[in-house]
């Protein structure tokens, strides 16, 4: 028995087996329970140690050889898997409420398994192939047989695919840098190509225009899932890169580039969000700003930056899950997601409206909500090294708040007198209610997730020390 079989191959096979199932509730429950089990196992089952079950002795190896390549899941990566599969279970449990479980659960599980594989594969170059496969599988997730794919989907596919040659080329160049460390030109070239690859993958400014387009034309719940899993896995993969190459880790230009990109994404994401008239596009820019926060965390001293980066992940997962589910519910009840069509929806779908507002406020960094502790720590750490950087982060945060307030004002303003009536079904209300409670717990007690996060920095040999 080995870890890659349990956390990569088994979910992938299970996902294929789920495909013929046509019952929303069964799919949602089976997918949710299965991923919870994977998460619990990742957190509690020790790897590379003999596990005694009565007379039976079991040892979970950390690697698996396939076609001369290796999939390696180290014992330190257990909490990361728990986090990824735990967050995936949130989406799967919410899939029935969003009425998207039929395609979402099997394909979503397959995408998750592939993204885990991208983190685990050795040599790391092959991660690009896993990511590309995941992106290709994501296309049927966000398209429909009934209508031709929109511009956003095509743009998504183009940008994510363009990342692959960049990562592969950088891998080839990096092998040369390892062979001749003194060759600065080669190092600069490989860093530039690598940066470009990650810029495409993480949708760094100005390569993020597919995100708002995708949210305009595709189901918000599935897009929300992609906006969580793709950047999260890519960031972990990217941190692995930084950890591996000391010349990259210690380069001041690299730190400046990360900080500049992070601030640019945060400020532009926030600013654009503040001027949108479409609640889906506001979520898109909110997720762009989230990636900006993560890049900013990476630009800090790793002793502070890496714990902050991991602190950002649970809040991002929960915030996006609540946000996209609320959007899906509101979209069901209005002609479109434009402001003119969702005016006064707070009185028609109060729980979804509250979920939308709170998730958006959490992304902005409103105190009490999940996003706040990580943003506070990040802002504080950034201010200690650069007050100008902290100022621009403040600009981004204020703009995100402005977007939240506009959205809240529009949702609460109706043209005529209307009573309060909760039209969400019990499942939608339950899922949103639990999500909202989760946001408050994360906001008030960030130490609650330290159970998962405390040991995560140790998965990086240099950055985690």
């Amino acid at each position, binding site marked *: 028995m080995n870890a890659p079989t349990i956390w990569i191959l088994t979910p992938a096979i299970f996902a294929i087996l789920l495909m013929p199932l046509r019952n929303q509730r069964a799919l949602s429950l089976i997918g949710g329970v299965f991923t919870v089990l994977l998460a619990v196992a990742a957190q509690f089952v020790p790897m590379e140690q003999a596990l005694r079950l009565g007379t039976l002795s079991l040892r979970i190896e950390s690697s698996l050889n396939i076609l001369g390549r290796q999939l390696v899941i180290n014992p330190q990566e257990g909490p990361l898997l728990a986090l990824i599969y735990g967050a995936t279970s949130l989406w799967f449990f919410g899939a029935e409420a969003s009425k998207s479980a039929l395609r979402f659960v099997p394909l979503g599980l397959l995408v998750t398994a592939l993204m885990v594989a991208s983190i685990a594969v050795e040599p790391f170059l092959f991660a690009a192939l896993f990511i590309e496969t995941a992106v290709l599988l994501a296309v049927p997730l966000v398209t429909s047989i009934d209508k031709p794919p929109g511009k956003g989907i095509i743009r998504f596919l183009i940008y994510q695919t363009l990342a692959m040659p960049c990562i592969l080329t950088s891998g080839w160049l990096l092998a040369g840098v390892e062979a001749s460390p003194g060759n600065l030109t080669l190092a600069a070239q490989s860093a530039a190509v690598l940066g470009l690859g990650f810029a495409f993958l993480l949708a760094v400014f*100005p*390569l993020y225009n597919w995100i708002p387009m995708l949210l305009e034309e595709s189901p918000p719940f599935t897009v929300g899932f992609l906006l969580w899993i793709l950047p999260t896995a890519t960031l972990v993969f990217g941190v692995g890169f930084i950890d591996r190459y000391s010349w990259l880790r210690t380069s001041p230009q690299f730190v400046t580039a990360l900080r500049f990109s992070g601030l640019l994404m945060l400020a532009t994401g926030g600013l654009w969000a503040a*001027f949108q008239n479409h609640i889906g596009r506001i979520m898109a820019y909110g997720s762009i700003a989230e990636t900006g926060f993560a890049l900013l965390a990476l630009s800090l001293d790793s002793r502070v930056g890496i714990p902050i980066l991991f602190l950002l992940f649970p809040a991002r997962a929960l915030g996006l899950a609540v946000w996209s589910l609320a959007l899906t519910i509101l979209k069901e009840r209005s002609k479109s997601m434009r402001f003119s069509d969702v005016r006064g929806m707070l009185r028609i779908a109060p729980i979804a409206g509250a979920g939308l507002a709170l998730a958006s406020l959490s992304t902005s960094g409103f105190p*009490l909500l999940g996003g706040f502790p990580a943003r506070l720590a990040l802002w*504080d*750490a950034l201010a200690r090294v650069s007050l100008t950087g902290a100022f621009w982060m*403040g600009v981004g945060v204020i703009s995100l708040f402005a977007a939240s307030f506009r959205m809240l004002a529009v949702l609460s*303003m109706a043209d005529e007198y209307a009573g309060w009536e909760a039209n969400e079904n019990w499942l939608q209300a339950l899922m949103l209610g639990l999500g909202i409670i989760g946001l408050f717990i994360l906001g008030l007690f960030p130490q609650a997730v330290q159970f998962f996060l405390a040991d995560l920095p140790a998965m990086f040999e240099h950055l985690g020390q």
Partner: protein
Amino acid sequence: MFIFITVGLLLLTALFLLTLRFMLPDFRFAWLTATGGAFLAWISVFFWQTGMPASVALPLWQPESVFRQSPLFLADGIAWAFALSVTTICLAVIITSVARDNFPSPLSWIGVLTLTGLGVLAVTADNPLTLVLLWAAIDLTEMTSQMRFVENPRLSERVVISFASRVTGILILLWANMVSASEGFVLDFSSPPPRAGIYLIIASALRLGVLPIHLPYASESSFRRGFGTALRMISSGSSLILLARIPPDSVSSSITPVLTLLVAAAALYGAWMWLRAPDELAGRPYWLIGLGSLAVASALRGNPIGATAWSCALILCGGVLFLASAKSRWLETGLLVGLWGISALPFSLTASGWVNPSGTHGYIVPFLVAAQAMLLAGYHRQSQRSAARTSFENQPIWAKNVYPLGVYVILLTILLLGFFGWEGTLQIGNWALGVTAAFLMVGVLWLIPRVRLLNPVRAHWVRTTDSTQPDIIYRTIWTAYRAVRRLLNAFSNVLEGESGIMWTLLFLVLFISIFSQAAP
């Protein structure tokens, strides 16, 4: 520990009432339950005196390497004065609700009890992180309650504007934290770095709750008087505590003189508008501006005890006036205790208001005294307008007997805080300025019937169609907003259009070039 007993009593009562509302909608003793809970909480505040100062910490935020502070509460003299003021208002609002048209209104009592619980926690916050969390909780509670009570959905926008203006205060407090961090300090109330004090004052002023000028209850004066009073006073108290926590030496900055002048101007404006307000509810925002400015001025002049005194006067003296809605001779006489409360005369609640230990910014004192005189005159005029109050006669006998207790409890607390319990008690203070303000008040009262300019203006909150000054400001902001939106939309359209990929790559190259030029 007593902090949590008080808060627990308030929140558990609110929770109990909420449960009753769903389980037993016809429960007849909701008012008695609410009053009982509020009364026990009020009594429990006095027990704080047995063990002050007392500090209570919540579990540490982790990882400790990234969080330099964790939630912490402190019960000291200043927090006690604020907590007593806030719980007194809560008790009084619930007791006096028996005389209002919307009685019984369990939902508004639940709101008041919850807000008070959070308010008590806020006034005991011992670091900015705790205060920020509690401000956020108060803001969310306020917004939810207001949204629920606003019948006309068009007015919901005002609720959101009010929420946004308060959140701006939170962001400024957080920015003070960042400024401190950039200088290598951890922002702490006991020793804030020199540049941070100014941001704390601005944050507190922004959160006073005067924006938007009027709460969205145009047609519901019962809510404005009861729940609205609790809302305004408790949220003001939770904001003003920050002024009382600023040590005198941390407000020295290059912009302090400018800020002091602005505060004096705000005090004069608020006091003038209060003096000319057609009724006490219409004038309430100006009362907050006027007395809030006096509190801010005290903080700027290095007198946190004075800031506490003015803040408690704002809550209690304002509270008693706004809650007094019944026509009665004893009420008119009793309300004069409130006048004593804001007089700054020896042994009054505000006796320490004019003390200036640092001796700075003396040039604004005449303006501030003039503002105080107008506030006193306005208070006197509003308290003696019995004709504007509703008659008591058609109330049930028990309500007639119970209602005055709500007013008495506030009057008692105003007197009590002048003599007992915190650092500002039994003060003679700068009595000369108090006496000057009192004489000026008499002069203004003498002039009111003789000078037309001093007569009340009509209630402008009912003017919805006229183009007012704030409307012009909003329109200008809106025009600028639309211009920026057009610009950003044009940029988005270019990137998302048919040739978007080429434009995106072009911009990417442009940014890489700019960055590579700028990078060292």
